[in-house]
């Protein structure tokens, strides 16, 4: 069964394609936006902008340190740079540059970290961003966005561009099904409840939102009503949504296509522990590098499916009942 099928979600095209289209839209609408590429425009899909607006597209080449700082410099004349590449290359080659010239300088730059997670698949672990969000978490001034579907990607690109300050946006090769209709309410820092329920809450981001909805549909067949929250903003975190979920449903499962160590589950657990401790479980990558392979096979092998969320949901519910 494909991702989102059980929940009745419509299939879509790869998220990176949506990103490219959304970026082209903001470049068209806002003359201040410029796009910088680390020679991966055909993979990140910034090539769409390059074709339409060559004078506002800059391929800095395979030199991420230089790429990040040139982008930061362009913000210094009032432009809004979108600095784009794979998250693994940006973060591993230019962490220092992002730290000083973007985050510490609090400049109005946007960074696209493409190919987040493991679902780029066959190119293998050197290209995968399994630790990207943990690393971005180390920039205290940076907004972090993880869209889960086409509509939220479009909204995120627009919101990031309009926001005054540094923003990180995660993109992916994977075709994420449509969680939202086109008129979704996307506010930075405000999580969206995509399914109501009071037995437990599944808090997810990225493709795990669709997996969470699949899991919720399956659990509903068993009479369990799971709330599903799309936590598309990792920073600033929607503390209120987490606390309400803990108080109202009494059990939480988090799900992310990312290492558990340093992942958003641990940040949510901190909020829960401080405000309203309830039983929790965490779906994500255990300490390992992932291998090359078909994306769906990899999701299965590394326990990032709706079935894995369901299992954790049953566990956490059993613990909740026992506590009562």
């Amino acid at each position: 069964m494909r991702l989102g099928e059980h929940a009745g979600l419509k299939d879509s095209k790869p998220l990176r394609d949506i990103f490219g289209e959304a970026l082209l839209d903001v470049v068209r609408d806002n003359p201040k936006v410029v796009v910088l590429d680390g020679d991966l425009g055909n993979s990140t899909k910034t090539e769409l902008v390059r074709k339409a607006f060559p004078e506002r597209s800059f391929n800095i080449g395979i030199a991420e340190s230089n790429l990040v700082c040139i982008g930061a410099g362009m913000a210094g004349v009032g432009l809004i740079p979108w600095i784009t590449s794979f998250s693994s290359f940006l973060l591993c080659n230019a962490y220092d540059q992002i730290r000083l010239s973007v985050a510490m300088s609090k400049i109005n730059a946007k960074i696209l970290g493409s190919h987040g997670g493991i679902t780029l698949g066959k190119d293998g672990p050197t290209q995968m961003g399994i630790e990207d969000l943990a690393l971005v978490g180390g920039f205290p001034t940076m907004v972090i966005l993880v869209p889960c579907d086409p509509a939220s990607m479009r909204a995120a690109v627009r919101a990031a561009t309009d926001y005054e300050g540094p923003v990180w946006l995660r993109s992916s090769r994977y075709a994420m099904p449509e969680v939202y209709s086109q008129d979704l309410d996307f506010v930075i820092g405000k999580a969206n409840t995509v399914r109501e329920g009071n037995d437990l809450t599944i808090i997810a981001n990225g493709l795990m939102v669709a997996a969470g909805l699949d899991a919720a549909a399956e659990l509903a067949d068993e009479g369990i009503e799971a709330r599903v929250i799309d936590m598309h903003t990792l920073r600033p975190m929607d503390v209120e949504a987490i606390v309400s979920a803990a108080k109202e449903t009494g059990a939480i499962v988090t799900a992310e296509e990312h290492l558990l160590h340093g992942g958003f589950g641990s940040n949510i657990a901190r909020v829960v522990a401080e405000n309203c401790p309830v039983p929790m479980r965490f779906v994500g990558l255990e300490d390992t590098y992932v291998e090359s392979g078909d994306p769906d096979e990899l999701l299965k092998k590394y326990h990032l499916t709706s079935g894995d969320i369901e299992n954790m949901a049953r566990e956490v519910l059993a613990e909740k009942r026992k506590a009562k």
Partner: protein
Amino acid sequence: MGSIANKNELKIIARELRLDILEATTKAESGHLSSSFSSVEILTALFFNGILRYRSDEPLWPERDRFIMSKGHAAPLLYAVLAKAGYFSRDELWRLRQAGSPVQGHPILGCMPGVEATTGSLGQGISLAIGHILGARLIKKDFSAYVLIGDGECQAGQIWESAMAAAHYQMQELIVILDYNKFQEMGPISREMGLEPLTEKWQSFGWYTQEVDGHDVQKISAALKTLQEVKEKPSILIAHTVKGKGISFVEKDFTWHGRAIKDPEQYEMAKKEILCG
């Protein structure tokens, strides 16, 4: 706007900058005195001899030339220059490295007017300047960018990434000044990690190069004016300098890198030498 001072005035400015740096770092009990001293005449020429176009009463004047202190550890010099140029009160210098003060140990963008970049991890300044110029070309602003880099900094890979890019973009608006004082933190550069042949390296990357006595304000100014006329390529002024220039016992001992003069006797001696220099 940097006014054109006469030769004697420039000498006085350089002397006052050294005194301010000495006092600020001694008060802070830390800071890179010797790395600041080697660049004093370079920044004196740039800011006070009509090279750099700026308005200290309008720090974000869109047409301003950019000055980026890529060797961020020379922050005491940058602050002393900015204060003298009128960006802020000289009294701020005495808050260097203090908690609650915007006068951070290394420059942070947005903390003090006139500071154009956050630096202190070496290698980023030229790339930032390239971004400013690419942006300026796009929005049709006509300004130049000047970047001061250190010699040890030339060991960083990003310097050469940016060198390649600036030549690719035929960036005649970019002038880099290299403070070639021949020492890095752990010792002589030639011993630790040699850079030579350095001029040839820059030339082979497509840059116009010129060398100068980095403690002669007139010669530096003349050289910078020549570089302003270079077309279709970036240029670099390789300024031969002396680390700790102006204080004999600092000049002789590279271990002063990153240290302030704390001993009162040494402080008085240093002050006397600067005043008599």
